[in-house]
Protein backbone atom coordinates (compact mmCIF):
# COMPACT_ATOMS: atom_id res chain seq x y z
CA UNK A 1 0.00 0.00 0.00
CA UNK A 2 2.73 2.46 1.03
CA UNK A 3 4.93 1.83 -2.06
CA UNK A 4 1.91 2.45 -4.29
CA UNK A 5 1.01 5.71 -2.57
CA UNK A 6 4.60 6.92 -2.56
CA UNK A 7 5.18 6.04 -6.24
CA UNK A 8 1.93 7.80 -7.17
CA UNK A 9 2.95 10.86 -5.17
CA UNK A 10 6.37 11.03 -6.88
CA UNK A 11 4.78 10.66 -10.31
CA UNK A 12 2.05 13.24 -9.67
CA UNK A 13 4.48 15.82 -8.27
CA UNK A 14 6.82 15.33 -11.25
CA UNK A 15 3.94 15.66 -13.71
CA UNK A 16 2.76 18.78 -11.90
CA UNK A 17 6.24 20.32 -12.24
CA UNK A 18 6.37 19.34 -15.93
CA UNK A 19 2.90 20.57 -16.82
CA UNK A 20 2.98 23.77 -14.79
CA UNK A 21 6.35 24.57 -16.39
CA UNK A 22 7.67 25.48 -12.95
CA UNK A 23 10.72 23.44 -13.90
CA UNK A 24 12.15 22.52 -17.29
CA UNK A 25 10.49 19.23 -18.24
CA UNK A 26 13.75 17.33 -18.71
CA UNK A 27 15.03 18.46 -15.32
CA UNK A 28 11.72 17.64 -13.62
CA UNK A 29 11.70 14.24 -15.35
CA UNK A 30 15.22 13.25 -14.42
CA UNK A 31 14.71 14.43 -10.81
CA UNK A 32 11.46 12.45 -10.57
CA UNK A 33 13.12 9.36 -12.03
CA UNK A 34 15.98 9.60 -9.53
CA UNK A 35 13.58 9.99 -6.60
CA UNK A 36 11.45 7.09 -7.90
CA UNK A 37 14.42 4.71 -8.15
CA UNK A 38 15.74 5.88 -4.77
CA UNK A 39 12.36 5.34 -3.08
CA UNK A 40 11.97 2.00 -4.84
CA UNK A 41 15.31 0.77 -3.59
CA UNK A 42 14.68 2.03 -0.06
CA UNK A 43 11.27 0.36 0.20
CA UNK A 44 12.22 -2.60 -1.96
CA UNK A 45 9.58 -2.24 -4.68
CA UNK A 46 11.83 -1.10 -7.58
CA UNK A 47 15.46 -1.94 -8.39
CA UNK A 48 18.04 -0.33 -10.66
CA UNK A 49 17.84 -3.32 -12.99
CA UNK A 50 14.06 -2.95 -13.24
CA UNK A 51 14.45 0.77 -13.93
CA UNK A 52 16.80 0.07 -16.84
CA UNK A 53 14.51 -2.67 -18.12
CA UNK A 54 11.63 -0.17 -18.08
CA UNK A 55 13.37 2.03 -20.66
CA UNK A 56 12.01 1.34 -24.15
CA UNK A 57 15.13 1.38 -26.28
CA UNK A 58 13.11 0.66 -29.40
CA UNK A 59 11.45 4.08 -29.05
CA UNK A 60 14.71 5.82 -28.21
CA UNK A 61 16.59 4.24 -31.11
CA UNK A 62 13.90 5.16 -33.61
CA UNK A 63 13.76 8.74 -32.34
CA UNK A 64 17.55 9.12 -32.29
CA UNK A 65 17.92 7.69 -35.79
CA UNK A 66 15.26 9.95 -37.27
CA UNK A 67 16.60 12.98 -35.37
CA UNK A 68 20.03 12.34 -36.88
CA UNK A 69 18.62 12.24 -40.41
CA UNK A 70 16.75 15.51 -39.78
CA UNK A 71 19.89 17.06 -38.27
CA UNK A 72 21.70 16.27 -41.53
CA UNK A 73 18.86 17.49 -43.75
CA UNK A 74 18.12 20.68 -41.81
CA UNK A 75 21.11 22.83 -42.85
CA UNK A 76 20.83 21.91 -46.54
CA UNK A 77 17.88 24.28 -47.08
CA UNK A 78 15.67 21.45 -48.36
CA UNK A 79 12.69 22.45 -46.21
CA UNK A 80 13.05 26.06 -47.34
CA UNK A 81 13.26 24.85 -50.93
CA UNK A 82 9.93 23.02 -50.65
CA UNK A 83 8.21 26.01 -49.04
CA UNK A 84 9.52 28.40 -51.71
CA UNK A 85 8.41 25.98 -54.39
CA UNK A 86 4.94 25.86 -52.83
CA UNK A 87 4.88 29.66 -52.81
CA UNK A 88 5.71 29.85 -56.52
CA UNK A 89 3.21 27.17 -57.48
CA UNK A 90 0.44 28.99 -55.64
CA UNK A 91 1.02 31.97 -57.98
CA UNK A 92 -0.03 34.11 -55.02
CA UNK A 93 -3.51 32.63 -54.71
CA UNK A 94 -4.15 32.48 -50.90
CA UNK A 95 -6.26 29.29 -50.81
CA UNK A 96 -3.91 27.48 -53.17
CA UNK A 97 -1.02 28.61 -50.96
CA UNK A 98 -2.83 27.26 -47.89
CA UNK A 99 -3.35 23.86 -49.53
CA UNK A 100 0.19 23.63 -50.92
CA UNK A 101 2.01 24.73 -47.76
CA UNK A 102 -0.34 22.60 -45.64
CA UNK A 103 0.34 19.56 -47.81
CA UNK A 104 4.11 20.07 -47.83
CA UNK A 105 4.16 20.44 -44.04
CA UNK A 106 1.93 17.40 -43.58
CA UNK A 107 3.90 15.10 -45.87
CA UNK A 108 7.17 16.12 -44.21
CA UNK A 109 5.73 15.69 -40.73
CA UNK A 110 4.43 12.21 -41.58
CA UNK A 111 8.03 11.06 -41.90
CA UNK A 112 10.03 13.64 -39.96
CA UNK A 113 9.71 15.46 -36.68
CA UNK A 114 6.73 17.88 -36.68
CA UNK A 115 8.57 20.52 -34.74
CA UNK A 116 11.58 20.66 -37.04
CA UNK A 117 9.28 20.76 -40.04
CA UNK A 118 7.31 23.68 -38.65
CA UNK A 119 10.43 25.50 -37.40
CA UNK A 120 11.86 25.45 -40.90
CA UNK A 121 8.70 26.02 -42.95
CA UNK A 122 7.14 28.79 -40.82
CA UNK A 123 9.77 31.51 -41.43
CA UNK A 124 9.45 31.03 -45.20
CA UNK A 125 5.67 31.18 -44.78
CA UNK A 126 6.02 34.56 -43.10
CA UNK A 127 8.29 35.64 -45.96
CA UNK A 128 5.80 34.61 -48.65
CA UNK A 129 2.91 36.27 -46.80
CA UNK A 130 4.83 39.51 -46.38
CA UNK A 131 5.85 39.86 -50.00
CA UNK A 132 2.28 39.00 -51.04
CA UNK A 133 0.92 41.55 -48.57
CA UNK A 134 -1.42 39.06 -46.82
CA UNK A 135 -1.69 37.85 -43.22
CA UNK A 136 0.56 34.93 -42.31
CA UNK A 137 -1.68 33.87 -39.41
CA UNK A 138 -4.03 31.46 -41.29
CA UNK A 139 -1.08 29.78 -43.00
CA UNK A 140 0.97 29.42 -39.81
CA UNK A 141 -1.94 28.02 -37.83
CA UNK A 142 -2.84 25.66 -40.68
CA UNK A 143 0.72 24.35 -40.82
CA UNK A 144 0.79 23.51 -37.11
CA UNK A 145 -2.72 22.03 -37.14
CA UNK A 146 -2.17 19.95 -40.28
CA UNK A 147 1.31 18.78 -39.25
CA UNK A 148 -0.02 17.52 -35.92
CA UNK A 149 -3.02 15.89 -37.60
CA UNK A 150 -1.02 14.29 -40.42
CA UNK A 151 1.66 13.04 -38.07
CA UNK A 152 -0.81 10.56 -36.57
CA UNK A 153 -0.94 8.65 -39.85
CA UNK A 154 2.42 6.91 -39.66
CA UNK A 155 4.43 4.99 -37.11
CA UNK A 156 7.25 7.52 -37.32
CA UNK A 157 5.07 10.63 -37.64
CA UNK A 158 4.70 11.46 -33.98
CA UNK A 159 6.40 10.34 -30.73
CA UNK A 160 3.16 8.93 -29.22
CA UNK A 161 2.85 6.67 -32.28
CA UNK A 162 6.39 5.41 -31.79
CA UNK A 163 5.57 4.62 -28.17
CA UNK A 164 2.27 2.93 -29.04
CA UNK A 165 3.79 0.89 -31.87
CA UNK A 166 6.56 -0.30 -29.63
CA UNK A 167 4.18 -1.29 -26.82
CA UNK A 168 1.47 -2.83 -29.00
CA UNK A 169 3.81 -4.40 -31.54
CA UNK A 170 2.20 -2.51 -34.43
CA UNK A 171 4.12 -2.43 -37.69
CA UNK A 172 4.60 0.50 -40.04
CA UNK A 173 1.96 -1.00 -42.33
CA UNK A 174 -0.52 -1.42 -39.47
CA UNK A 175 -0.52 2.35 -39.23
CA UNK A 176 -1.05 2.70 -42.98
CA UNK A 177 -4.02 0.31 -42.97
CA UNK A 178 -5.60 1.34 -39.65
CA UNK A 179 -4.65 4.96 -38.92
CA UNK A 180 -3.98 6.52 -42.33
CA UNK A 181 -7.54 6.35 -43.75
CA UNK A 182 -9.08 7.85 -40.63
CA UNK A 183 -6.33 10.48 -40.38
CA UNK A 184 -6.85 11.39 -44.04
CA UNK A 185 -10.51 12.13 -43.31
CA UNK A 186 -9.59 14.12 -40.19
CA UNK A 187 -6.93 16.01 -42.13
CA UNK A 188 -9.38 16.97 -44.85
CA UNK A 189 -11.85 18.09 -42.19
CA UNK A 190 -9.16 20.23 -40.59
CA UNK A 191 -8.17 21.79 -43.92
CA UNK A 192 -11.76 22.61 -44.91
CA UNK A 193 -12.50 24.01 -41.48
CA UNK A 194 -9.39 26.24 -41.53
CA UNK A 195 -10.44 27.41 -44.99
CA UNK A 196 -13.90 28.26 -43.60
CA UNK A 197 -12.76 29.84 -40.31
CA UNK A 198 -10.27 32.09 -42.10
CA UNK A 199 -12.56 32.81 -45.07
CA UNK A 200 -12.18 36.59 -44.63
CA UNK A 201 -8.37 36.56 -44.58
CA UNK A 202 -8.12 33.98 -47.37
CA UNK A 203 -10.67 35.83 -49.49
CA UNK A 204 -8.36 38.81 -49.94
CA UNK A 205 -6.74 39.27 -53.30
CA UNK A 206 -3.01 39.77 -52.64
CA UNK A 207 -1.86 43.15 -53.98
CA UNK A 208 1.47 41.69 -55.11
CA UNK A 209 0.87 38.21 -56.49
CA UNK A 210 3.66 38.42 -59.08
CA UNK A 211 6.35 38.85 -56.41
CA UNK A 212 6.22 35.15 -55.45
CA UNK A 213 7.07 34.22 -59.03
CA UNK A 214 10.40 35.98 -58.53
CA UNK A 215 11.34 33.57 -55.72
CA UNK A 216 14.09 31.22 -56.79
CA UNK A 217 13.74 27.77 -55.16
CA UNK A 218 17.13 26.62 -56.47
CA UNK A 219 18.84 29.45 -54.58
CA UNK A 220 16.98 28.48 -51.42
CA UNK A 221 18.58 25.02 -51.54
CA UNK A 222 21.99 25.73 -50.05
CA UNK A 223 23.54 22.28 -50.26
CA UNK A 224 21.86 20.15 -52.95
CA UNK A 225 24.54 17.46 -52.80
CA UNK A 226 24.01 16.68 -49.12
CA UNK A 227 20.24 17.05 -49.47
CA UNK A 228 20.21 14.44 -52.23
CA UNK A 229 22.32 12.00 -50.20
CA UNK A 230 20.14 12.31 -47.08
CA UNK A 231 16.94 12.00 -49.12
CA UNK A 232 18.19 8.84 -50.81
CA UNK A 233 18.96 7.32 -47.41
CA UNK A 234 15.65 8.51 -46.00
CA UNK A 235 13.80 7.03 -48.98
CA UNK A 236 15.59 3.72 -48.44
CA UNK A 237 14.67 3.75 -44.77
CA UNK A 238 11.00 4.41 -45.57
CA UNK A 239 11.00 1.50 -48.04
CA UNK A 240 12.44 -0.74 -45.32
CA UNK A 241 9.78 0.49 -42.89
CA UNK A 242 7.14 -0.85 -45.30
CA UNK A 243 8.58 -4.37 -45.12
CA UNK A 244 10.22 -4.30 -41.68
CA UNK A 245 7.92 -7.00 -40.29
CA UNK A 246 8.56 -9.37 -43.18
CA UNK A 247 12.34 -9.01 -42.94
CA UNK A 248 12.26 -9.03 -39.12
CA UNK A 249 13.94 -5.69 -38.57
CA UNK A 250 12.84 -3.34 -35.81
CA UNK A 251 12.02 0.27 -36.76
CA UNK A 252 14.77 1.36 -34.37
CA UNK A 253 17.35 -0.69 -36.24
CA UNK A 254 16.22 0.72 -39.59
CA UNK A 255 16.34 4.32 -38.32
CA UNK A 256 19.73 3.94 -36.64
CA UNK A 257 21.09 2.03 -39.63
CA UNK A 258 19.90 4.81 -41.94
CA UNK A 259 21.46 7.42 -39.66
CA UNK A 260 24.74 5.51 -39.75
CA UNK A 261 24.63 5.20 -43.54
CA UNK A 262 23.88 8.91 -43.96
CA UNK A 263 26.65 9.91 -41.56
CA UNK A 264 29.17 7.74 -43.41
CA UNK A 265 28.06 9.09 -46.79
CA UNK A 266 27.83 12.79 -45.84
CA UNK A 267 30.63 12.86 -43.25
CA UNK A 268 29.41 16.14 -41.71
CA UNK A 269 30.92 18.27 -38.97
CA UNK A 270 29.74 15.90 -36.24
CA UNK A 271 29.86 18.56 -33.55
CA UNK A 272 27.30 20.68 -35.39
CA UNK A 273 25.17 17.71 -36.44
CA UNK A 274 24.86 16.24 -32.97
CA UNK A 275 24.17 19.67 -31.53
CA UNK A 276 20.96 19.69 -33.58
CA UNK A 277 19.73 16.48 -31.95
CA UNK A 278 17.35 17.15 -29.10
CA UNK A 279 19.08 15.22 -26.35
CA UNK A 280 16.82 16.87 -23.79
CA UNK A 281 13.80 15.19 -25.41
CA UNK A 282 15.48 11.78 -25.37
CA UNK A 283 16.45 12.16 -21.71
CA UNK A 284 12.88 13.25 -20.94
CA UNK A 285 11.61 10.02 -22.53
CA UNK A 286 14.06 7.91 -20.51
CA UNK A 287 13.03 9.66 -17.29
CA UNK A 288 9.34 9.07 -18.00
CA UNK A 289 9.96 5.39 -18.79
CA UNK A 290 11.79 4.98 -15.48
CA UNK A 291 9.01 6.73 -13.53
CA UNK A 292 6.22 4.72 -15.14
CA UNK A 293 8.27 1.58 -14.54
CA UNK A 294 8.25 2.51 -10.85
CA UNK A 295 4.46 2.95 -10.88
CA UNK A 296 4.12 -0.44 -12.48
CA UNK A 297 6.49 -2.11 -10.03
CA UNK A 298 4.63 -0.57 -7.09
CA UNK A 299 1.39 -2.10 -8.35
CA UNK A 300 -0.31 1.24 -9.06
CA UNK A 301 -1.12 0.54 -12.70
CA UNK A 302 -2.61 -2.85 -11.85
CA UNK A 303 -4.88 -1.11 -9.33
CA UNK A 304 -5.92 1.50 -11.92
CA UNK A 305 -6.64 -1.18 -14.49
CA UNK A 306 -8.62 -3.09 -11.88
CA UNK A 307 -10.77 -0.01 -11.34
CA UNK A 308 -11.24 0.46 -15.07
CA UNK A 309 -12.06 -3.21 -15.60
CA UNK A 310 -15.01 -2.75 -13.25
CA UNK A 311 -16.52 -0.69 -16.04
CA UNK A 312 -17.00 -4.06 -17.71
CA UNK A 313 -20.56 -3.28 -18.69
CA UNK A 314 -19.36 -0.44 -20.95
CA UNK A 315 -19.30 -1.65 -24.56
CA UNK A 316 -15.72 -1.72 -25.91
CA UNK A 317 -16.66 0.62 -28.74
CA UNK A 318 -17.91 3.27 -26.32
CA UNK A 319 -14.83 2.71 -24.20
CA UNK A 320 -12.65 3.51 -27.23
CA UNK A 321 -14.59 6.66 -28.12
CA UNK A 322 -14.37 7.81 -24.50
CA UNK A 323 -10.63 7.19 -24.65
CA UNK A 324 -10.31 9.34 -27.82
CA UNK A 325 -12.05 12.29 -26.13
CA UNK A 326 -10.49 11.83 -22.71
CA UNK A 327 -6.95 11.62 -24.04
CA UNK A 328 -7.63 14.47 -26.49
CA UNK A 329 -8.90 16.73 -23.70
CA UNK A 330 -5.80 15.96 -21.63
CA UNK A 331 -3.35 16.44 -24.46
CA UNK A 332 -4.95 19.77 -25.39
CA UNK A 333 -3.62 21.18 -22.15
CA UNK A 334 -0.55 19.06 -21.45
CA UNK A 335 2.22 17.30 -23.34
CA UNK A 336 0.95 14.16 -25.07
CA UNK A 337 4.16 12.17 -24.48
CA UNK A 338 3.77 11.70 -20.70
CA UNK A 339 0.07 10.96 -21.20
CA UNK A 340 0.89 8.25 -23.72
CA UNK A 341 3.67 6.75 -21.61
CA UNK A 342 1.35 6.65 -18.58
CA UNK A 343 -1.58 5.21 -20.56
CA UNK A 344 0.41 2.39 -22.15
CA UNK A 345 0.75 0.21 -19.01
CA UNK A 346 -2.88 0.92 -18.13
CA UNK A 347 -4.02 -0.39 -21.51
CA UNK A 348 -1.64 -3.32 -21.20
CA UNK A 349 -3.10 -4.31 -17.84
CA UNK A 350 -6.61 -4.07 -19.30
CA UNK A 351 -5.38 -6.62 -21.82
CA UNK A 352 -4.24 -8.83 -18.98
CA UNK A 353 -7.76 -8.80 -17.46
CA UNK A 354 -9.13 -10.01 -20.77
CA UNK A 355 -10.20 -7.00 -22.82
CA UNK A 356 -9.40 -6.77 -26.56
CA UNK A 357 -7.07 -3.80 -26.36
CA UNK A 358 -6.16 -3.41 -30.04
CA UNK A 359 -8.83 -0.76 -30.72
CA UNK A 360 -7.80 1.06 -27.55
CA UNK A 361 -4.28 1.58 -28.89
CA UNK A 362 -5.71 3.34 -31.93
CA UNK A 363 -7.99 5.43 -29.73
CA UNK A 364 -4.95 6.49 -27.73
CA UNK A 365 -3.05 7.45 -30.90
CA UNK A 366 -5.97 9.50 -32.26
CA UNK A 367 -6.68 11.25 -28.98
CA UNK A 368 -3.03 12.06 -28.27
CA UNK A 369 -2.50 13.34 -31.81
CA UNK A 370 -5.63 15.39 -32.43
CA UNK A 371 -6.02 16.76 -28.89
CA UNK A 372 -2.92 18.90 -29.29
CA UNK A 373 -4.73 21.05 -31.85
CA UNK A 374 -7.08 22.50 -29.27
CA UNK A 375 -4.92 25.11 -27.57
CA UNK A 376 -1.90 27.25 -28.30
CA UNK A 377 0.13 25.12 -25.84
CA UNK A 378 -1.39 21.80 -26.95
CA UNK A 379 1.57 20.77 -29.08
CA UNK A 380 5.14 21.89 -29.55
CA UNK A 381 4.38 22.78 -33.17
CA UNK A 382 1.67 25.18 -31.96
CA UNK A 383 4.05 26.78 -29.48
CA UNK A 384 6.66 27.15 -32.24
CA UNK A 385 4.40 28.96 -34.72
CA UNK A 386 2.93 31.12 -31.96
CA UNK A 387 6.32 32.22 -30.67
CA UNK A 388 7.58 32.83 -34.22
CA UNK A 389 4.53 34.96 -34.92
CA UNK A 390 5.22 36.94 -31.76
CA UNK A 391 8.33 38.20 -33.49
CA UNK A 392 6.20 39.61 -36.32
CA UNK A 393 3.74 42.47 -36.48
CA UNK A 394 0.72 40.12 -36.32
CA UNK A 395 1.16 37.72 -33.38
CA UNK A 396 -1.08 34.68 -32.88
CA UNK A 397 -2.79 35.04 -29.50
CA UNK A 398 -4.12 32.35 -27.22
CA UNK A 399 -7.64 33.77 -27.68
CA UNK A 400 -7.31 33.49 -31.46
CA UNK A 401 -6.19 29.88 -31.13
CA UNK A 402 -9.20 29.06 -28.98
CA UNK A 403 -11.44 30.55 -31.65
CA UNK A 404 -9.81 28.90 -34.68
CA UNK A 405 -7.81 25.91 -33.39
CA UNK A 406 -10.26 24.51 -30.85
CA UNK A 407 -13.03 24.01 -33.46
CA UNK A 408 -10.50 22.07 -35.55
CA UNK A 409 -9.71 19.79 -32.62
CA UNK A 410 -13.40 19.22 -31.89
CA UNK A 411 -14.22 18.56 -35.55
CA UNK A 412 -11.32 16.15 -36.12
CA UNK A 413 -12.17 14.25 -32.93
CA UNK A 414 -15.84 14.09 -33.95
CA UNK A 415 -15.05 12.80 -37.45
CA UNK A 416 -12.57 10.35 -35.98
CA UNK A 417 -15.12 9.08 -33.44
CA UNK A 418 -17.68 8.38 -36.17
CA UNK A 419 -15.12 6.60 -38.33
CA UNK A 420 -13.79 4.76 -35.28
CA UNK A 421 -17.24 3.33 -34.62
CA UNK A 422 -17.75 2.43 -38.27
CA UNK A 423 -14.31 0.83 -38.61
CA UNK A 424 -14.38 -0.79 -35.17
CA UNK A 425 -14.27 -4.39 -36.50
CA UNK A 426 -11.20 -3.51 -38.59
CA UNK A 427 -9.50 -1.66 -35.72
CA UNK A 428 -10.07 -4.67 -33.46
CA UNK A 429 -8.00 -6.87 -35.75
Amino acid at each position, binding site marked *: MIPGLLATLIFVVSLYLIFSEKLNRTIAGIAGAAVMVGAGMALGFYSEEEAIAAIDFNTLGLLLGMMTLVALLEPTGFFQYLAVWAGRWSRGHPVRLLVLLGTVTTVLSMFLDNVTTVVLIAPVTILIS*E*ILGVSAVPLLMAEALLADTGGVATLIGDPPNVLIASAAGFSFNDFLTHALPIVAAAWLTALLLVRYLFRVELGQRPPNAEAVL*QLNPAQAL*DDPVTARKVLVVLGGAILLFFIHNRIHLSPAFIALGAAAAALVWVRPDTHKTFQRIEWGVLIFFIALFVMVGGLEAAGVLRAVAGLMARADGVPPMLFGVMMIWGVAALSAVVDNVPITIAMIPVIESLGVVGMNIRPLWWALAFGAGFGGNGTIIGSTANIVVAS*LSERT*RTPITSALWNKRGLPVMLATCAVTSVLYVLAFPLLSR
Partner: protein
Amino acid sequence: MKIGDCMKRTVVSIPATATVGEAAALFAARHVGMLPVVDESGRPVGVLQLRDLLALVMPDFVRLVGDIDFVHDFGAMEAPQPSPEAMARPVREVMQPSLSVEETCGLLRAFALMRQRDLHDLPVVAPDGRLVGIASRVDIGAALLASWRPPPKGDAP
Protein backbone atom coordinates in the same frame (compact mmCIF):
# COMPACT_ATOMS: atom_id res chain seq x y z
CA MET B 1 46.85 62.09 -32.74
CA LYS B 2 43.57 62.23 -30.84
CA ILE B 3 39.97 62.05 -31.99
CA GLY B 4 39.66 65.81 -31.43
CA ASP B 5 42.10 66.34 -34.32
CA CYS B 6 40.11 64.49 -36.97
CA MET B 7 36.48 64.99 -35.94
CA LYS B 8 33.93 67.25 -37.63
CA ARG B 9 32.97 70.22 -35.42
CA THR B 10 29.63 70.98 -37.04
CA VAL B 11 27.29 68.36 -35.65
CA VAL B 12 23.71 67.80 -36.74
CA SER B 13 21.84 66.62 -33.64
CA ILE B 14 18.23 66.17 -32.68
CA PRO B 15 16.36 66.81 -29.41
CA ALA B 16 15.03 63.76 -27.58
CA THR B 17 11.50 65.14 -27.85
CA ALA B 18 11.51 65.26 -31.68
CA THR B 19 9.33 62.75 -33.51
CA VAL B 20 10.42 59.92 -35.78
CA GLY B 21 8.94 61.84 -38.71
CA GLU B 22 11.06 64.91 -37.92
CA ALA B 23 14.15 62.73 -37.55
CA ALA B 24 13.50 61.10 -40.93
CA ALA B 25 13.22 64.54 -42.58
CA LEU B 26 16.47 65.64 -40.93
CA PHE B 27 18.33 62.49 -42.04
CA ALA B 28 17.14 63.06 -45.61
CA ALA B 29 17.91 66.80 -45.67
CA ARG B 30 21.39 66.55 -44.11
CA HIS B 31 22.41 63.24 -45.68
CA VAL B 32 23.88 61.83 -42.47
CA GLY B 33 23.95 58.28 -41.11
CA MET B 34 23.59 59.06 -37.43
CA LEU B 35 22.06 61.77 -35.29
CA PRO B 36 23.20 62.23 -31.70
CA VAL B 37 20.10 62.72 -29.55
CA VAL B 38 20.60 65.56 -27.04
CA ASP B 39 18.76 66.94 -24.02
CA GLU B 40 17.97 70.66 -23.47
CA SER B 41 21.51 71.40 -22.28
CA GLY B 42 23.10 69.87 -25.36
CA ARG B 43 24.34 66.66 -23.69
CA PRO B 44 23.97 63.44 -25.69
CA VAL B 45 21.39 61.03 -24.27
CA GLY B 46 21.40 58.52 -27.11
CA VAL B 47 22.19 57.93 -30.75
CA LEU B 48 19.73 57.50 -33.59
CA GLN B 49 20.98 55.69 -36.65
CA LEU B 50 19.45 55.47 -40.12
CA ARG B 51 18.94 51.77 -39.56
CA ASP B 52 16.90 52.38 -36.38
CA LEU B 53 14.36 54.17 -38.56
CA LEU B 54 14.56 51.67 -41.42
CA ALA B 55 13.93 48.88 -38.88
CA LEU B 56 10.42 50.29 -38.56
CA VAL B 57 9.63 49.20 -42.12
CA MET B 58 11.93 46.18 -42.44
CA PRO B 59 9.95 43.00 -43.24
CA ASP B 60 9.79 40.52 -40.36
CA PHE B 61 11.16 37.72 -42.53
CA VAL B 62 14.54 39.44 -42.84
CA ARG B 63 15.09 38.64 -39.16
CA LEU B 64 13.51 35.18 -39.32
CA VAL B 65 14.98 33.69 -42.50
CA GLY B 66 18.73 33.20 -42.40
CA ASP B 67 19.57 33.58 -46.05
CA ILE B 68 17.36 35.73 -48.27
CA ASP B 69 19.28 35.68 -51.54
CA PHE B 70 16.48 33.64 -53.17
CA VAL B 71 14.04 36.52 -52.67
CA HIS B 72 14.32 38.64 -55.80
CA ASP B 73 11.30 40.85 -55.27
CA PHE B 74 10.16 42.15 -51.89
CA GLY B 75 6.68 42.60 -53.39
CA ALA B 76 4.29 44.27 -50.99
CA MET B 77 7.17 45.18 -48.67
CA GLU B 78 9.13 47.06 -51.35
CA ALA B 79 7.94 50.63 -50.71
CA PRO B 80 6.59 50.50 -47.19
CA GLN B 81 5.40 53.49 -45.18
CA PRO B 82 5.62 53.46 -41.41
CA SER B 83 2.30 53.82 -39.67
CA PRO B 84 1.24 57.34 -38.59
CA GLU B 85 1.64 56.17 -34.97
CA ALA B 86 5.23 55.13 -35.63
CA MET B 87 5.94 58.49 -37.31
CA ALA B 88 4.60 60.35 -34.26
CA ARG B 89 6.69 58.43 -31.72
CA PRO B 90 9.39 60.47 -29.96
CA VAL B 91 12.93 59.51 -31.03
CA ARG B 92 13.64 58.73 -27.36
CA GLU B 93 11.74 55.45 -27.86
CA VAL B 94 13.62 54.41 -30.98
CA MET B 95 17.17 55.54 -30.20
CA GLN B 96 20.02 53.38 -28.94
CA PRO B 97 21.86 54.11 -25.66
CA SER B 98 24.41 56.86 -25.91
CA LEU B 99 28.09 56.19 -26.48
CA SER B 100 30.46 59.14 -26.64
CA VAL B 101 34.14 59.85 -26.02
CA GLU B 102 36.11 62.95 -25.05
CA GLU B 103 38.35 64.82 -27.46
CA THR B 104 41.45 63.25 -25.90
CA CYS B 105 40.38 59.71 -26.85
CA GLY B 106 42.98 57.79 -28.88
CA LEU B 107 42.07 56.85 -32.45
CA LEU B 108 42.48 53.10 -32.17
CA ARG B 109 40.39 53.03 -28.98
CA ALA B 110 37.69 55.07 -30.70
CA PHE B 111 37.68 52.73 -33.69
CA ALA B 112 37.54 49.66 -31.47
CA LEU B 113 34.59 51.07 -29.50
CA MET B 114 32.68 51.77 -32.72
CA ARG B 115 33.40 48.31 -34.03
CA GLN B 116 32.18 46.71 -30.85
CA ARG B 117 28.95 48.72 -30.76
CA ASP B 118 28.54 48.52 -34.55
CA LEU B 119 28.41 52.32 -34.88
CA HIS B 120 29.49 54.22 -37.97
CA ASP B 121 29.82 57.60 -36.24
CA LEU B 122 31.01 58.49 -32.75
CA PRO B 123 29.85 61.60 -30.86
CA VAL B 124 32.61 63.55 -29.08
CA VAL B 125 31.88 65.54 -25.91
CA ALA B 126 33.63 68.26 -23.91
CA PRO B 127 34.65 67.51 -20.30
CA ASP B 128 31.32 69.06 -19.16
CA GLY B 129 29.40 66.53 -21.27
CA ARG B 130 28.26 68.90 -24.05
CA LEU B 131 28.40 67.62 -27.61
CA VAL B 132 31.28 69.27 -29.49
CA GLY B 133 31.95 67.06 -32.51
CA ILE B 134 31.41 63.83 -34.37
CA ALA B 135 33.84 61.49 -36.11
CA SER B 136 32.98 58.80 -38.64
CA ARG B 137 34.78 55.48 -39.08
CA VAL B 138 36.28 56.93 -42.25
CA ASP B 139 37.55 60.05 -40.42
CA ILE B 140 39.20 57.93 -37.76
CA GLY B 141 40.43 55.15 -40.03
CA ALA B 142 41.92 57.52 -42.61
CA ALA B 143 43.71 59.52 -39.88
CA LEU B 144 45.12 56.27 -38.48
CA LEU B 145 46.29 54.99 -41.85
CA ALA B 146 47.88 58.38 -42.66
CA SER B 147 50.13 57.93 -39.65
CA TRP B 148 51.60 54.68 -41.00
CA ARG B 149 55.21 55.16 -42.13
CA PRO B 150 56.28 53.69 -45.48
CA PRO B 151 58.81 50.83 -45.13
CA PRO B 152 62.48 51.91 -45.43
CA LYS B 153 63.85 51.63 -48.99
CA GLY B 154 65.89 48.54 -49.97
CA ASP B 155 64.35 46.54 -47.15
CA ALA B 156 61.63 45.03 -49.31
CA PRO B 157 61.22 41.26 -49.02
